[in-house]
């Protein structure tokens, strides 16, 4: 909930989301593959032995329910928004599901140009389409263009009943097509943040010594020949796998039956445990200690519409009592954070009954859950499969601030990206409570005749252009067309506070600027 002041703790706190590396690289590396082969020869008998002896994880190797998935991805370059980065290929394993569909992680197909399925045993290939992708739950569904391509493969059913103590087997393939099985123990089932960093999702934590395979970008985990989870992240140091559990997959698949796809619901309020007796007293809580203290309510969120207020104590959600830590008793998992009732158990469009206490008085309200799109944020939390918007004005580059832009600074973007922009992203609901806008940033300057003297300018927040308020790149593009006395003036929040350009010179130099810096276009507004 809050970064600790102590640097060591802070790192520990954040590690869950950022530092854990995925297995496998983002590129296929032929040199490594040959090394892998040699090791495999030794390992195969061992794993086969383990598989036959293991209590609940027997997989009949001949009944393959897997296909290889080859993806060529090409991310957009948010620093040079007019271009894409170099393409790269990823290989993974997809889980074959009933209905001729293949389940993979959304990460795998993010910014994809081309997706191909490959039969492991025959090497036969076909192109595939991405039917649904959900970056928040990190899941995607693929469909082969050749409908018969998956014939002969047994679809995987979901194992929804995994509990702590169960053994799951990770499925990987050798380059020969032979199955590699690795077993692990489910040690924890808890709510964590997924890579998109939006909301809490149910996660299995499995202790497992997974080995590198060139196709391990998506790794299915099975239990009794049923799909129990998909690999989310793997920490090589601690040999801990975090996996997207079957209940989340089931939720995604059910959602995917309906068009348009709705996505996982969100309630839109922040909360804090009520373990502190002083806080309980302050909130005038009566009865037995229970519930969570509401710290924030996002404007126009389901919680706001239901009438929830800061200071309320939420004591039950959908008739599940919530304890002081924010946990309810799940029939399968025991105590787990109540956010599971929202993300895993409810759908956008559902109504959940909240029981609250306000100043000691019990109340109840109906929470009509909706999905919050990335676009509904002032600074979108992710932006994939979509070209970034930009506007070039005489060498000044303007973009709408997004977390995708900040992520260009790498895994440590929170520390390395321009701190002022990180601050704006982090506290966006506080800084822009009215919402319904974007933050336009002058990100960089391409030196040209129009921008002489502005070359040190970067990361400035635009307030106004030609005296007009700028709340989106479209606002900027509109305002730019109305110069005042032949000048285009830009007001910025930060020093130097004002920049002026000669409108005629900007027009005259546009062609040369495009040629010189290889800009295919001076703007992309949608």
């Amino acid at each position: 909930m809050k970064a600790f002041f102590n640097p060591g703790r802070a790192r520990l706190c954040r590690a869950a989301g950022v530092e854990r590396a995925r297995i496998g690289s983002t590129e296929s590396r032929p040199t490594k593959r040959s090394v892998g082969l040699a090791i495999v020869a030794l390992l195969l008998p061992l794993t086969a032995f383990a598989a036959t002896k293991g209590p609940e994880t027997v997989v009949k190797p001949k009944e393959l329910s897997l296909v290889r998935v080859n993806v060529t991805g090409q991310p957009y370059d948010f620093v040079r928004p007019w271009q894409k980065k170099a393409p790269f290929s990823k290989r993974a394993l997809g889980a074959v599901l009933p209905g001729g569909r293949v389940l993979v992680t959304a990460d795998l197909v993010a910014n994809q140009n081309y997706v191909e399925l490959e039969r492991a045993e025959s090497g036969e290939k076909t192109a595939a389409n991405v039917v649904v992708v959900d970056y928040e739950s990190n899941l995607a569904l693929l469909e082969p263009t050749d409908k018969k391509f998956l014939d002969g493969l047994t679809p995987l059913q979901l194992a929804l009943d995994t509990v702590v103590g169960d053994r799951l087997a990770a499925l990987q393939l050798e380059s020969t097509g032979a199955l590699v099985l690795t077993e692990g123990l489910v040690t924890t089932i808890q709510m964590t943040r997924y890579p998109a960093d939006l909301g809490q999702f149910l996660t299995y934590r499995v202790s497992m010594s997974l080995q590198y395979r060139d196709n391990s970008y998506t790794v299915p985990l099975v239990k009794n020949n049923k799909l129990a989870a998909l690999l989310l992240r793997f920490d090589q140091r601690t040999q801990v796998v975090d996996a997207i559990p079957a209940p989340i997959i089931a939720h995604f698949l059910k959602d995917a039956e309906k068009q348009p796809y709705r996505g996982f619901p969100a309630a839109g309020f922040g909360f804090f445990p009520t373990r502190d007796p002083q806080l309980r007293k302050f909130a005038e809580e009566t009865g037995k200690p229970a519930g969570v203290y509401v710290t924030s309510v996002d404007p126009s969120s389901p919680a706001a519409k239901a009438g929830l207020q800061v200071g309320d104590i939420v004591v039950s959600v959908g008739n599940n009592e919530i304890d002081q830590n924010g946990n309810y008793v799940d029939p399968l998992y025991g105590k787990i954070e109540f956010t599971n009732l929202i993300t895993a158990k409810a759908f956008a469009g559902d109504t959940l009954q909240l029981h609250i206490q306000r100043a000691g008085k019990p109340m109840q309200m109906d929470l009509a859950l909706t999905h919050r799109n990335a676009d509904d944020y002032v600074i979108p939390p992710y932006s994939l499969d979509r070209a970034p918007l930009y506007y070039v004005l005489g060498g000044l580059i303007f973009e709408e601030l997004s977390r995708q832009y900040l992520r260009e600074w790498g895994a440590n973007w929170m520390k390395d990206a321009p701190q002022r922009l990180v601050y704006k992203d982090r506290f966006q609901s506080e800084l822009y409570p009215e919402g319904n806008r974007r933050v336009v940033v002058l990100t960089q300057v391409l030196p040209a005749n129009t921008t002489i003297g502005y070359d040190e300018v970067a990361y400035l927040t635009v307030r106004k252009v030609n005296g007009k308020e700028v709340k989106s790149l479209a606002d900027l593009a509109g305002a730019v067309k109305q110069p005042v006395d032949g000048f285009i003036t830009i007001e910025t929040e930060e020093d130097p506070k004002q920049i002026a350009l000669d409108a005629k010179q900007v027009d005259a130099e546009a062609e040369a600027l495009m040629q010189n810096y290889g800009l295919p276009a001076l703007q992309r507004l949608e």
Partner: protein
Amino acid sequence: MRRWAILSISLLFAVDARAQQKSPPEPPGDQKPTPSPVAQAPSVIVAPPARPNGPIQKSLVRITSTEVEPDYRAPWNSGGVQRGIGAGFVIEGNRIMTNAHVVSNSRYLTVERDGDPNKYPATVLFVAHDCDLALLKVASADFFKNMVPLTFGGIPELESTVSAYGYPLGGERMSVTTGIVSRIDFTLYTHSSVDSHLAIQISAQINPGNSGGPVMQDGKVMGVAFQGYSGDVAQGVAYMIPTPVIRRFLQDISDGHYDRYVDLGITYAKLQNPAQRHFLGLKDDDRGALVGTVIAAGPAANSLQAGDVLLAIDDHPIASDATVELDGSRVDMPEVVERKFKGDKVKLDVWRDKKPLTVNIELGSVWPYLYLAHGYDVKPRYVVYGGLVFQPLSLDLIDAYAPTDVRIRHYFDYFVIEQIYLDHPEVVILTNILPDPTNTYLAAYRASIVDEVNGKKIRKLDDLAAAFAEKADRFVVRMIGDGPPLVLDPKEVESARERIKKRYNVLVDQNLEEQPSKPTPADQTKN
């Protein structure tokens, strides 16, 4: 008018926490024969090496400082004791000049001179942390007997040779190195880490222990060696404080008090873009600097505004790259202000809304900058209440905790420029919690910034101390941003007070005083 830079310059003050090794006493005086080249033939007369600066041993002083570094993570502690070696030199009036960082946080100072086995206790007469200079005095009259005071020169020519004298790496004997003047420019003075002044880069090898030593040319002091890059950043880059800065310091203290540097309290930008110049209605005469932010707590607050163009300062035309010509060379515009003193006026020719006007500004210092500077000879301020440690944000606090909290870093970075100090002259942070049954549920509040207590705004640490001293059934502490209030029951806090103090060896509940209450030895009086 501050320029920010992130440099890894280290101060050249040799700190030696170990017990110092005593070498056998050296024979007094300069009697050792200078090593001369091996005579090739008896007929050749080997000339002794030229010593253009005279016998510097008679002016150079070796300074040993025992300092106590405050501990911002346990602010009630007195801090760690360290010993360091620096250099200094005698100037007129039986005074010793050295760097501020050589004597900062010192609890005991001794000086030694060449060829004299005695260590003489010394005291700080004046210290200027913003320009890293200090003057010492020695009670014993014997010390200055036969010592030769050095005099100051001007700014040496580029490429001319200079010699640096000092005690690099703490040795007992004087060391000399030579080099040339490489560059003369504004540079960040890392001792305070917010002040930039003129500094001269020299190629003479200088190392920790050279700090405070004179850099000489033709028998005159051309500067005081003070900082350099560590070898892994850049090599052969050392800096000395030039004589204009030294003379300003000596003039400032001539009234018995050091007033600090003065400032206009503005940020400005260059005005090199032709379109912007036309838009502002300026002539094509390459003049003017654009005012960005006017610091409300600064001297220009009522005279300048954002968007003003500064055309001239004290009748020196300001070029569009924000430089002026002074004494025949181009320097950054602030240099005109740098040479002035508290209460002096500066005249600015301003272009506002396409009309000229002239303003006169009485100069002073801009206090919010001090919160971003390193503090020396101060005691950390703090309040411990119910095991919760509250401290004001400062550079020293940032150094001690290296917080990763985005909000705290923002409040520090934009404290002055976004005028955060207007609402929070001190940004009071709950930095730490000393665990106790009474505060066991409060860990998540750590690293929050206090906004108000029982509805009263907390602008300074003193406000917080006062709020907690009031009679109340409970204290509701609101933090900045989303988050639950922190609620404290004074009765519980009171019941735990002695237990927490004892368990964590917190000697005193709070310190609101900045000045250390250090006992002054009878012979150590401070002006």
